[in-house]
Every structure is written in C-alpha cells, then in structure tokens.
C-alpha cells in the first residue's frame, strides 16, 4: 500500500508540475488542481497509513488512526476548492479582457502581430 500511495503522490505531483509550466490558463488550473490533490493524499499519509482503525475513542480499542491529518485534509480541501473557483473566474475574466487565454497575454499579441 505504501508504494501505491507514494506512486500516486509522485504521479499527481509530476503531472501537476508539468501542467503548471504550460502557457495556457486552462492547463495551469488543471495543474494546480492536481497538485492540491497530491498534497491532500500526502497529508493523509503523514498520519501514517492504517487499515480498519478508528479515529475516535472507543471502548476496548488500543490502536487508533491519527485524526489530526484528516482534519487538516478537510481544511486544505475546502481552501483549495475555494481558491480554484476564484482562479477559474479570474482566468475567464482575463480571457475576456485580454482576448487570449495565454498567461502572459501581451507577449502573445506581439507574436500574433509578427505572423500576420
């Protein structure tokens, strides 16, 4: 399970980094989402991986899963959700105002001018 989770985080992170290095806002947003998924799984794993263990105190149970990372992940998910929503709106506005979905829209206009 450890290897599987580690590979999961690795693939998500590398995919995210690859995508945020692209020049279109859409792929940058996708990349940021993948990075935030990776970090969520990572935070989970930092409470160590357990199977079938309760996080809340129960009678007759001696071993528990760490409840704190689960709370942290919840907060992180909410925050990244809100941020992504804001970023999508912002990039839509940028697309409308700058007439391009390039993250560096002015540079693109120059190139377009040269081509035509």
């Amino acid at each position, binding site marked *: 399970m450890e290897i599987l989770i580690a590979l999961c985080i690795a693939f998500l992170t590398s995919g995210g980094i690859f995508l945020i290095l692209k020049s279109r806002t859409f792929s940058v947003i996708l990349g940021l989402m993948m990075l935030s998924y990776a970090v969520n799984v990572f*935070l989970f794993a*930092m409470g160590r991986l357990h199977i079938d263990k309760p996080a809340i105190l129960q009678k007759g149970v001696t071993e528990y899963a760490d409840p*704190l990372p689960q709370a*942290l992940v919840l907060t992180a998910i909410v925050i990244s959700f809100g941020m992504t929503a804001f*970023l999508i709106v*912002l990039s839509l506005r*940028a697309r409308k*105002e700058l007439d391009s979905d390039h993250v560096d829209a002015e540079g693109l206009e120059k190139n377009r001018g040269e081509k035509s």
Partner: protein
Amino acid sequence: MSHLVILPILVPLFGSMMILFAKILNHKAQQFLSLLTVIVLNVVNIIALLKVLDSNTLVYQMGNWEAPFGITFVLDGLSVTMLLVTSLLSIGSLWYAIKSKVDGEGISFHVLFQLLIFGINGAFLTGDIFNLFVFFEVLLLSSYALALHGNGKKRVRFGLHYMIINLVGSVLFLFGIGAMYGVLGTLNIADMAVRVSELTPQNQGVVAASGLLLLLVFGLKAAMFPLYFWLPGTYSNTSAPVAAMFAIMTKVGIYSIIRVHGTIFGPLAGDLSYYYVPWVLGLGLITLILATIGIMSAKTLKEQVAYFVLASAATLQISIGINSTIAMSGAIYYLIQSTFIAGGFFLLADTIGTLRGEFKDKIVRSPKFKSIVFVGGLFFAYAIAISSMPPLAGFLGKTMILYGGLESPYMGVVFSVMIISSLLMIIALAKTGSLIFYDTQDSQESINITLPDKIYSPIIYLFSISFVLVLFANSVTNFTLKSSQEIFSTKEYISKVMQEKRDD
C-alpha cells in the same frame, strides 16, 4: 486569561461583517463603519502594546484547550509591533482610498479591506503553524480580490500571475507542514521546537528539508530571490491604497521566517540550530542587488517604489541572515519605518500620476503641473526617508543592522552590498526627482489638473510616523531590543506557551 489577545483578529472580522450588511444602506455608511473598525482596532492594539510593555508575552488558548492540543495565540513584542504597524498603515491607506474615491470603484472594497487586515493580524498572532497557513489563505484571497479592484488589462494580467504563484506557494506550504507533522507529530510552534531538540539523527534530514520548503514559501511572500518577479508588476499596477496596504504583505513573510524558523530552528535545535540562516543571508544579498538594479531601471515611479518595497524586504532578509540581537532589533525598527514610507510613497506616486495627466507617473520630462512645489517637497522628504538617509528613522535602522553585521563572518559582503546599493538608490531617486520636478518643459503649456488639498493629508500622516519614530528613537529602540531578545530566547517562549496548561 485575558481575551485581549484575540481582539485584533475579531475586530476586523466583525467589522467586515457589519460593512457587508451596511451595503443595503449606502456607501457612506460603509465608509464610516470601515473607518470606525480601523480606529477601534488601533485602540485595541495600543492597549495590547501597553499590556505587553507591562507583562511581556501574553498567551491565549482558544476554549482553554491545553497548549499542544488546542489553538494558541501568542502576543509578544514582535507581534504587537506588527499589529500596530498594520493598523496605523491601514488608517492612511483607507483615508486615501476614501478621499481619492478608489473605494467606490467596486462594491466590496471595504469588506475585502477588513478581511485583509483580519488575515494579516491572524498571521501575526497565531502560535500554530497550520493556522498560519489558514490565515495566509485568508489574507491572500482578499489580496487577490483587492489587487484586481478597479479596472485595467494590466491589473488582470498581473493579478493572474500573483494568484497562480501564490497558489503554488500554498501547495508547497502544505507539503512542508505535512512533512514536519509526519516526523514531529505536532503543529504548535513551541511544541515543535521542543520536539526538534529531541530529534534522532536519521529524522533530522526530513525536518531540515521541510524547514527549507517552508522557507521557500515564506520567501515567496517576502519576495526573496528568485521568487520576487511577481512583486513589481502586481504592486505597480494595482490601485494606490491597495499597493500601500500591500507594503505590509512582504513583512508578513519576514515575520513568519523570524517566528517559525527562529523558534523551531532556534538555539535549542542542536544540529539544526539556525541552519537556514546562510540561505536567507545569501538570497537576501542577491535580492538587494537585483532590487537596486530594478530601482535604477524602473520606467514609472510606481514601479520604482515597488522595487523599493523589494529592497526593504531584502534588507530585512539580510538582517535575519546576520542573526544577532542588535541586527534583529535594528530590523524591527527599520521594518516599522520602511512599511509606512513605502505605503505613503505609493500614495504620493498616485497623486503625482494624476497631476501630470497623460504623462502619468512615467519618469520622463513633462510640462509643469499644478502644486509642483508642494508635491516636489513631499517627494524630497519621502526620497530621503526611503533611501535611508539621515535624519530619518531608516538611517538609524540601517545603522543598527550594519552595527549588528560587524559580528557576522560575512561582514565585508554585507557592508559593501548594503552601502553601495544605498548610494545607487539615492542616485536613482535624484534622477527621478530632477526629471519630474526640475527638468520641466517650460516652453509648453502647463498641465492644469488640480487635486483637493485633503488628498495629501494621509501622505503627510504616514510620513509623520517616521518623524515620530526618530523623536522617540530611544524608547522605540529599547522596545525593539527587548523584542529581539525575546526572539532569541526561545526557551522562554516555549515555557510561556506550554506553561499555560498548568495555570488553568
């Protein structure tokens, strides 16, 4: 347990809620509530300052949960200074926003403004690294919206850059926190400092790496090389009062490095004690050099001021890198002054841009404009203050930092970079001042745009704080010296935070 500690967070939060509801009344009501909130916040902060002068560090445990398990807020010399700087700066910024009618350009300016203060104050007070993340997100989200306030293509473009890089920073912050929690098993800064001192050698590497990851995130906020490229564009293209308020944002990063790294990797950390310091020093020096080049090559006055914000952040990074009590105390003193002056300079640059009509704030020759002598005088005063020349507070602060630097092994590099960059800054400002105010095109008709006199009052107000700092330099430096001794005696900080559980 005094509830005073939590008030600087609650006042702007409730203020923003009230302003949100006041939307149904009218714009005037919003302005009134916003000013009222900021003034109340200042009163609270001054009371907090007096309390700290009285009884040193105050610790507040939310809901009386014991220290490593609950949410902790800590009010000590450094954080109360930062709180007061934020609230005093926000008066000037808000005043200008109302006088120049910038706040009317969008409907939620005042709400966002208060939420920004809420996030900043929270970041200054929290004693818990995950809450630091949460407050960072709060202040960032309102800063994204504020940076885009008003209109303009450039604003959207640089706002997008600012947001994307900060989102990447947030992800890295979570990676750093997660890795630290995985090894140390706690998120309370004081408790983490204890755990680091008991670390086994094979775990040290992980903690050191995640510490550097956090340094990267704070360095992004503090505009440390190579992560400063977002700053000049964002700051020079947003509206003036927002840019003035953003002058405190780089200091949030600086504060976090001092608080988080200075405590966790403080004198108790064994092998990891102050291992991050050479990084901060080296990168700070590079940042200062690049900021100076930016100042000299800036094409508009706002861009130049934005690079000055970068230069002051770099100076603070260097003083963290020197890592001595005196340098730190000088850094706190310099921080107070540079925040107000940079904020006021953004406002001044905006008025100059308005007065010059189509020439805006470009550093080029232009015909004469209205009240050129008065504005020129203000520019002269601000130029002296921002380039740290005597007799103003920046000079004293920089001297204290350099005096602390005498003990540093890298004294030669620190001295040469700081002094040469100061000289180049003065030359750049002299060039700007003479192009805008002296070398006017007298043959052409002068520009006939006037501004109401009241618009200058926030600018004079922010400048006067720097003046007060010099007048009371002795008592202020005594206080900053005490605060910087607190920063270096992490044992006391830890015992204060962890002690609280025995008292209850």
